[in-house]
């Protein structure tokens, strides 16, 4: 049997269990076609079959026989919509991009045939691309790219290079992700997971003694949630590996379990972590190690931080006792949000000659190589970690995850490379999540309307893990009024959380920023004006003033709304820490007469390649960009991408490398100026005689900055906080309970912006993820066993093109002049207040104050009834 793929005849297998996507990728090496959900929902695997878009993950490979197939590779890179995606930056990590451009190519061609070169509206584009999900949330760029391609703006190659330096690789399917790496002879590994919430495992046996099996149990041989890894097995093909995994015999000694917070807190409840050792060993989803805290049954904490705490408590108690109307005391909850990067956790491990090579989807290439060397007791230079492109992470891909442990140990047993790739069900069950929270906030205003006292108590619901910081994040907002914040964890027999984009931030803002909004109502004051009075952060104050002047805020509806559809606008503030990695290094080397930037950092879709290229080019005054090679631990140390640290660490190191290169070149040719642009011809000449010249730049210190701490986790805490203000407009359908975000203004204060378009894209994506958090995203579980039920992308609901507001991003670029480069990270601060702004908009529209996330239709109709 034969099919025509991209114009060439190819064989197709006659086995009914092989999907077309698997055959294209593994059989034909056409890895531009991605598999993310595996259930026909996300569209990453879209190919054209006889000219019509189809989800190749659902299509049997044998059904391709006699048909003509076009994959992203077959589009050739010349389709106007590919150019438009690159030019309008309709992508971040790029994992969904091939599917989007394949589908959009058909839509654009059809639209132009029918309508000529007129751009379609957002609704038409959202209809056409309804079968695609982008977890990074690059929808603004996609809308403008598709409209521009329809309008005929990309029939010829544009004059300017795309704003993102790896955009062309991503829109053509050439970009290689770790999931695409399977050297010939690679075996497949499959993880065997617990089907019980709590048990001691007596034994684990493969059905066949020849099957490589590695044990993944903790030292106490106890599983504490459904889905916990028990073992992993490998076989030469995916089908045989799955069969081997199903045949593994696990002997469970069942123990009582608690799956709900309420039952976990009841007297006499079974303990998730019973002993001091178990409690000390509980996994943490905090960004930093959790300080010790006391335990009471399944409740850990409080971790308390106060500023004039007794005064705060005394004032709040007195206000409660006297029924003071300027006391706002409310409780808010949030649901578990899953990172769900479209590229799953995946690792291809290969032992050879005493060394270990890993292709891993990781947010920390250098850090992972360090940890792998330590764990498997190898010299650091015998470990090589490669992550050329990373298909999203959001906090879930840091450290030695289950896929990496399993692949490394299985590869040693199998004597072959082994790939372990999470299914979407595994990704949505046991790859981390932002834990649900229950947060009680109390704010008291005095007679002048000033903040007199604040308290926040928050209970994190992170399954077997601890590390909630939701309340602590509130400590840093609204000046220095007396306050007490307390964080607790309630442990249950459910999967552990992981740090997720601004850990603790969104649930804190959901509670605090709605309470502030409520206070503005009580005081009869404009919510931006109130924040301007309360908030001492000068950067955010500039944003409030700017926000107040937007058409969105000035034109917002006033007074009671009536009728079925009600419009409202809400505001919320965000705050985040400025962190950086002191160990950041960037090598600049002359190769083939060209400058090459080389470092072991990684691009998760944030655009760090673009930042590095642009920074070196700017610093040397070069007209174009500079080639960048990252994602290989063989290079100098690259900062891990978590804590909004990549740009403020790697950017200054790149600038330092450029300065050092200039000095080195000047030593060879005095025509290279001490500062200012280097003449193109001079540069070419001197580079042609400097082959192999290499300099390494580092992260220079901030002005008045603290000395760099020598921490193993490469963590520097800088001076100053980043800030954001979001305005959100919604339309609430009061009949059917649907909330539709229509417009958003995102003001971001993170200092100087290194790369405008990629930074804006990240902030637009933060709005998309915040809308998901507010309206749709919710991990659901069985209340008795804690088993995760929302384990596919139909039941775990990511926002699509039609669910997101038209978003405008504004950058306030002052306030970080003490930082080399003048700017700090913005991945997290841009995500904190989105859901809170949406909640305030719903209140403004309906007069109903939402308390519980997500705002599902059932909750909305119940709330506004």
């Amino acid at each position, binding site marked *: 049997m034969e099919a025509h793929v991209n114009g060439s005849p190819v064989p197709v297998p006659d086995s009914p269990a092989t999907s077309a996507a698997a055959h294209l990728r593994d059989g034909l090496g056409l890895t531009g076609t991605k598999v993310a959900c595996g259930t026909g*929902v996300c569209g990453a695997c879209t190919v054209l079959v006889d000219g019509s878009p189809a989800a190749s993950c659902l299509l049997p490979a044998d059904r391709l026989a006699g048909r003509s197939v076009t994959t992203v590779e077959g589009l050739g890179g010349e389709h106007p919509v590919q150019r438009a995606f690159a030019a309008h930056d309709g992508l971040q990590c790029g994992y969904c991009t091939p599917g989007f451009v394949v589908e959009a190519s058909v839509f654009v061609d059809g639209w132009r045939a029918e309508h000529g070169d007129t751009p379609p509206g957002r609704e038409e584009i959202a*209809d056409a691309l309804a079968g695609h999900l982008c977890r990074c949330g690059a929808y603004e760029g996609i809308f403008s790219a598709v409209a521009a391609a329809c309008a005929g703006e990309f029939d010829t190659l544009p004059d300017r290079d795309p704003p993102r330096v790896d955009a062309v690789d991503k829109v053509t399917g050439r970009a290689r992700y770790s999931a695409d790496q399977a050297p010939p002879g690679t075996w497949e590994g499959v993880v065997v997971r617990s089907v019980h919430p709590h048990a001691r495992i007596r034994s684990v046996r493969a059905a066949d003694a020849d099957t490589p099996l590695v044990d993944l149990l903790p030292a106490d041989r106890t599983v504490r949630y459904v889905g916990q890894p028990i073992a992993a097995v490998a076989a030469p093909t995916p089908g045989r590996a799955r069969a081997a995994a199903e045949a593994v015999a696990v002997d469970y000694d069942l123990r009582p379990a608690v799956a709900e917070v309420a039952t976990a807190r009841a007297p006499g409840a079974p303990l998730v972590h019973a002993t001091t050792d178990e409690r000390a060993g509980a996994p943490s989803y905090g960004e930093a190690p959790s300080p010790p805290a006391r335990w009471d049954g399944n409740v850990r904490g409080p971790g308390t931080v106060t500023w004039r705490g007794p005064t705060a408590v005394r004032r709040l108690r007195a206000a409660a006792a006297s029924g003071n109307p300027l006391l706002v005391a409310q409780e808010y909850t949030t649901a578990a949000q899953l990172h769900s990067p479209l590229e799953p956790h995946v690792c291809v491990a290969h032992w050879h000659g005493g060394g270990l090579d890993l292709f891993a989807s990781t947010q920390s290439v250098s850090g992972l190589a360090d940890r792998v060397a330590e764990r498997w007791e190898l010299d650091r230079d015998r470990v090589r970690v490669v992550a050329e492109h990373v298909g999203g992470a959001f906090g879930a891909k840091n450290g030695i995850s289950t896929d990496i442990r399993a692949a490394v140990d299985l590869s040693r047993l199998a004597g072959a490379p082994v790939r372990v790739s999470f299914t979407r069900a595994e990704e949505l069950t046991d790859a981390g999540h932002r834990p649900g929270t229950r947060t009680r906030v109390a704010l008291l205003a005095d007679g002048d309307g000033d903040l007199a006292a604040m308290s926040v108590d928050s209970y994190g619901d992170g399954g077997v893990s601890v590390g909630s910081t939701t309340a602590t994040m509130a400590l840093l907002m609204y000046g220095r009024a007396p306050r007490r914040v307390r964080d607790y964890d309630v442990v249950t027999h459910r999967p552990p959380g992981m740090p997720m984009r601004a850990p603790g931030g969104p649930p804190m803002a959901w509670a605090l920023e709605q309470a502030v909004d409520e206070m503005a109502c009580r005081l009869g004051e404009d919510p931006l004006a109130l924040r301007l009075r309360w908030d001492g952060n000068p950067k955010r104050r500039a944003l409030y003033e700017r926000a107040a002047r937007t058409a969105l805020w000035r034109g917002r509806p006033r007074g009671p709304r009536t009728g079925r559809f009600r419009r409202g606008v809400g505001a919320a503030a965000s705050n985040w820490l400025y962190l950086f990695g002191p160990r950041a290094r960037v090598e600049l080397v002359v190769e083939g007469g060209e400058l090459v930037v080389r470092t072991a950092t990684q691009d998760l879709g944030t655009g760090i390649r673009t930042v590095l290229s642009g920074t070196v080019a700017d610093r040397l005054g070069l007209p174009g960009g500079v080639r960048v090679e990252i994602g290989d631990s063989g290079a100098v140390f690259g900062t891990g991408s978590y804590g909004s640290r990549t740009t403020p660490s790697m950017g200054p190191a790149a600038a330092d490398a450029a300065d050092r290169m200039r000095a080195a070149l000047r030593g060879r040719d005095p025509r290279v100026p001490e500062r200012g642009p280097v003449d193109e011809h001079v540069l070419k000449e001197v580079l042609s005689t400097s082959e192999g010249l290499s300099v390494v730049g580092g992260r220079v210190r901030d002005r008045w900055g603290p000395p760099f701490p020598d921490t193993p986790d490469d963590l520097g805490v800088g001076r100053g906080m980043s800030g954001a203000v979001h305005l959100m407009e919604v339309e609430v359908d009061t009949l059917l309970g*649907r909330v539709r975000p229509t417009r958003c203004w995102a003001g971001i204060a993170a200092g100087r912006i290194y790369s405008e378009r990629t930074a804006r894209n990240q902030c637009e994506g933060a709005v998309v993820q915040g809308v998901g958090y507010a309206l749709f995203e919710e991990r659901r579980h069985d209340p008795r*066993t804690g088993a995760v039920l929302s384990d596919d992308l139909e039941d775990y609901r990511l926002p699509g093109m039609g669910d997101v507001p038209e978003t405008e991003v504004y950058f306030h670029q002052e306030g970080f002049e003490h930082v080399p480069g003048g700017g700090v990270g913005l991945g997290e601060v841009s995500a904190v207040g989105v859901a809170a702004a949406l909640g305030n908009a719903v209140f403004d529209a309906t007069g109903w104050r939402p308390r519980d996330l*997500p705002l599902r239709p059932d909750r909305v109709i119940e709330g506004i009834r």
Partner: protein
Amino acid sequence: MSTVVRPDSLEGALAALAAGGRPRAGGLEPAGAAPVVDLTGIAGLHGTARSGDGGTRVGALTTVAALARLDGYPALSLTAGALATPQVRGTATVGGNLLQRSRCAYLGHPAFPAAHTPGRDCPSREGDHLHGVVFDTGGCASPHPSSLAVALLAHDAEVEAAGPDGTRTFPLAELYGTGDPLGDHLLSPDEVLTAVLLPAPVPGERAAHRRAAGRARAEWPLVEAVVRLLPGPGGTVGRAAVAAGSVARVPLRLPEVEEALAGAALDTGPGPRVAAALEAVAARTSPLPGTRYKAELLRATLLDTVERALRH
């Protein structure tokens, strides 16, 4: 590993199924020992054709996308066009849609091997059933997932099925009965759904469809409603057909709403009779603890759909 059998006739397919084969319309089947019987080579299952009485025979392998473009059946087209995603609509078939498996999250979950076992209570009843039925008839608590079934029920469609004893034709409602406690339909394993038969289009029909859901597109409905208004004399509704989905084990016709709409004036809002009928529908729901909201959402969705059909 299993093999694929590709019969080019219905007789060949029935023989392969009688020998234990698993039918396949278009999508991937899970790995298994039994051979897969690919039905796509059977010419008679493809395409749509007008029948002698002016009705339409829709072959079982007709895609959802083709139904969305079908002339003369606006309620069906609207429903088909709102279902799943463009890629899925382009591949999924009417037969596959009508016979699709329950979407219960417990079904097939490794921690719940006993889900959907005869004689065992569904674990979702004591567990998570936010998307469950609001007309509870015992047994499985998941609503039937087919949207096309809702529209076809409102069209009084018939189903044609071939089996070892020949071909039979029966009302679509009988494909589901009153809801099998565990199964998704009442077709026997050795039968093949060959076609759906639609009555002749009604000129001047007004139709509306609504999915109440969180996300705007590509979303499973919490409640789905289809309303068809057939013209009567002097700007009134002659006969109405109203059906709801995602609320029961089977798609439901709602006779009280249909009766209330008969004789109603077109181009106005729904009057008190319709409002009373909608209350009556909500009142006869039998929700699970987690699906009480669906009683109100059903009333609201029907109201919206009726209103848009009247004002079309």
